[in-house]
């Protein structure tokens, strides 16, 4: 299938997006956040919690903030503490957090920088080596053919999640996503260890990541198919979760500042800064990001607002490029959310899916199933999902979130997942090569719709370019949601970097990802 679209318009869209992103790039290269600093500490290996359950990275950063020292970067003070105490990094961090380190002790800046730099280099190399090893396993076992079957587990209890994920893998899942507990994106720390009491999902923690990763590696060997693991890095802890994901061997991450801003009311500046560091890590460690434009259509109408998805994808692509990510890691999101009562709705869905496919030919597109219009009629939901599956395979989507028939009721049961996979496997095989030999009339409903969405997205980008991204978000341009620049959660956690700000991981990642060259 191929729809004739004006490639000059697509190029113009990219140009507009880069103009829109520009002022933000300057901003987040001169600022940092609590979460970014904590992420740096995590990359240095600082981990664990105090007696009250507060993670040491938080304790350290909060202590530094309280002493107004943070704008030089937590890495700097960690180096200071390590040299001052002569302890291991972890113990130095604890000492720092407990106020046992004299921050005014005269330690030569060069010595600190050298420690910080050398340690970062060693740890980063170790991390990259681990990631290469994982890539080798992935290549050896092979991932399944695309569209990849993406299934969620969300019991709230990692010990229930694991067997369910394993069952899903055995039934054909290529990707397992562990949904997070309701509201985790709003908590400004990452819980520790393995957890059993989430609501609507299971806490994203290093311990849970590890447990699930091991189980999937094991079942992957059993099946001779590599099972990818993903989790959620949007929200107040975006870069920290990214660091943990890189360390624990995740393959993908939901990672989108726009989602946090619009759907979690996280402060614009906070999360865009965080996203920059987060995507630097993803780019270097080969983590596919998934963006959240699909969510726009759960609040706004899919027919009316389809173009906002495309416009946002242009912007999101640009933010990923700004962190040096290659297109093959950009799982741009969109969705099959047209009202099922729309006459010829299927044609509009095909138009949208194919348009996105053609505009981002190299991106491993993430395609969300119908959710908003799914009702408690689980039978009808299954029919609805069958057509979603069809459009996905016809238009060569890549990360296929499997639609669950109980979407309107509960997070999926083991059997719901099983039934959804049966449906998906059937349709993918039954229409396997159909996309390759199908075409739509040049001036028909499908082609015209695709062109209309492209045109409207360009108009929208022009508008956003005129007023600026922050103001556009304030006006409710995306998903009918308005957010003020100084509103939202986490704004207090953003600060300007000092001139002597130190973050060797960031510097190295920027170099690795060739970000410097792009400036």
């Amino acid at each position, binding site marked *: 299938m191929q729809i004739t679209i004006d490639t000059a318009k697509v190029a113009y869209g990219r140009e507009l997006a880069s103009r829109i992103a520009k002022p933000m790039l300057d901003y987040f290269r001169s600022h940092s956040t609590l979460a970014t600093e904590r992420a740096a500490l995590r990359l240095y290996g600082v981990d664990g919690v105090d007696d009250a359950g507060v993670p040491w990275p938080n304790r350290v950063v909060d202590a530094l903030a309280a002493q107004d020292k943070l704008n030089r970067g937590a890495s700097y003070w960690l180096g200071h503490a390590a040299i001052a105490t002569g302890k291991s990094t972890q113990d130095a961090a604890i000492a720092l957090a407990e106020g046992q380190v004299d921050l005014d002790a005269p330690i030569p800046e060069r010595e600190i920088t050298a420690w910080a730099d050398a340690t970062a280099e060693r740890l980063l190399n170790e991390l990259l080596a681990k990631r290469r090893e994982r890539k080798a396993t992935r290549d050896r076992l092979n991932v399944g053919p695309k569209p990849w079957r993406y299934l969620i587990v969300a019991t709230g209890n990692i010990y229930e999640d694991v067997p369910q994920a394993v*069952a899903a893998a055995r*039934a054909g899942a290529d990707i397992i996503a562990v949904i997070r507990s309701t509201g985790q994106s709003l908590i400004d720390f990452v819980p520790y260890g393995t957890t059993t009491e989430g*609501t609507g999902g299971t806490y994203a923690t290093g311990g849970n990541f590890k447990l699930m990763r091991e189980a999937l590696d094991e079942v992957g060997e059993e099946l001779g198919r590599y099972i990818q693991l993903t989790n959620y890095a949007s929200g107040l802890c975006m870069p920290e979760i990214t660091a943990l994901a890189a360390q624990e061997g995740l393959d993908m991450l939901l990672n989108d500042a726009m989602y946090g801003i619009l759907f*979690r009311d996280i402060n614009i500046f906070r999360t865009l800064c965080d996203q920059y560091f987060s995507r630097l890590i993803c780019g270097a460690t080969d983590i596919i990001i998934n963006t959240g434009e699909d969510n726009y259509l*759960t609040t706004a109408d899919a027919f009316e607002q389809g173009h906002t998805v495309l416009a946002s994808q242009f912007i999101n692509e640009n933010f990923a490029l700004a962190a040096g990510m290659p297109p093959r890691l950009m799982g741009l999101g969109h969705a099959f959310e047209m009202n099922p009562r729309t006459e010829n709705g299927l044609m509009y869905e095909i138009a949208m899916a194919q348009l996105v496919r053609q505009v981002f030919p190299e991106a491993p597109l993430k395609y969300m199933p119908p959710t908003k219009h799914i009702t408690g009629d689980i039978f009808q939901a299954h029919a609805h999902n069958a057509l979603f599956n069809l459009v996905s395979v016809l238009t060569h989507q890549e990360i296929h979130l499997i639609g669950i028939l109980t979407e309107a009721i509960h997070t999926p049961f083991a*059997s719901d997942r099983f039934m959804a996979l049966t449906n998906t496997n059937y349709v993918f095989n039954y229409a396997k090569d159909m996309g390759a030999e199908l075409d739509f009339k040049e001036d028909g409903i499908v082609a015209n719709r695709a062109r209309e969405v492209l045109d409207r997205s360009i108009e929208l980008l022009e508008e956003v370019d005129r007023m600026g991204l922050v103001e556009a978000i304030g006006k409710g341009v995306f998903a009918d949601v308005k957010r003020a620049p100084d509103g939202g959660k986490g704004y207090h956690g953003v600060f300007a970097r000092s001139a002597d700000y130190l973050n060797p991981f960031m510097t190295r990642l920027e170099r690795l990802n060739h970000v410097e060259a792009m400036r």
Partner: protein
Amino acid sequence: MSNQTYPRKPDLTKIRPYGDTLDDGKVQLSFTLPVPAGPEAYEAAKRLVLMMGLEDPSVVSMQAVDPTMTFFIMYGACTKTVDYTSIYVPRSEFTVMEMGEVDDLIETEFGRELTIVGACTGTDAHTVGIDAIMNMKGFNGHYGLERYRMINAINMGAQVPNEVLVARAIEEKADAILVSQVVTQKNLHIMTLTNLIEILEAEGLRGKMVVAVGGPRITHDLATELGFDAGFSVGSYAEDVASFVVQELIRRRDAQ
């Protein structure tokens, strides 16, 4: 060949499920058992359904979800009956009026704008439901409360702590509070809703404001049980809750 009268009518004091013949009791079930698929699992599924009081349990599909779990689809005939005539479901007693009628009624009865504060409370981030009720554009072609000439509608959005909602209601001298709850896992909504009523009671406001709740898993029954004045669910629109609020305010005024 037959002298049956047509059509047959169910005995409403003893209703049973209806498959293709009146009172055949036919029920479809599906569930998973944590045992491997096989004749014993098959038998276990049948016994379970028998214990539910269903006769002739029939396994129509037995599939291995994985080596440790088996998914069943079954049919059976329910022997239990319900006396439909004895069921009385209390409803909020009000007549649904159109937007214009609501506005006119407010004007004649109160001669001033009513203030209604709404939010999706607790950690619940679902705004679509409360927006459908409150925002100008409304839902499915039914305008929202912001559009009402005689209503001052304040939509605080989602993830609003109960305390913040109540503070705003006090500040705005609200006549009514509307809350939405969508996430019901682990009874999160029950906790959030109960807590709101406690705060209102503690502040001595419970009697002063009309308080209603809505959401896909809310029933009027549940709402009143939790201390709300009314509950609204799937398929409700701004005019439903607006009509209720005005009529309830009139009732309370007249009762004084």
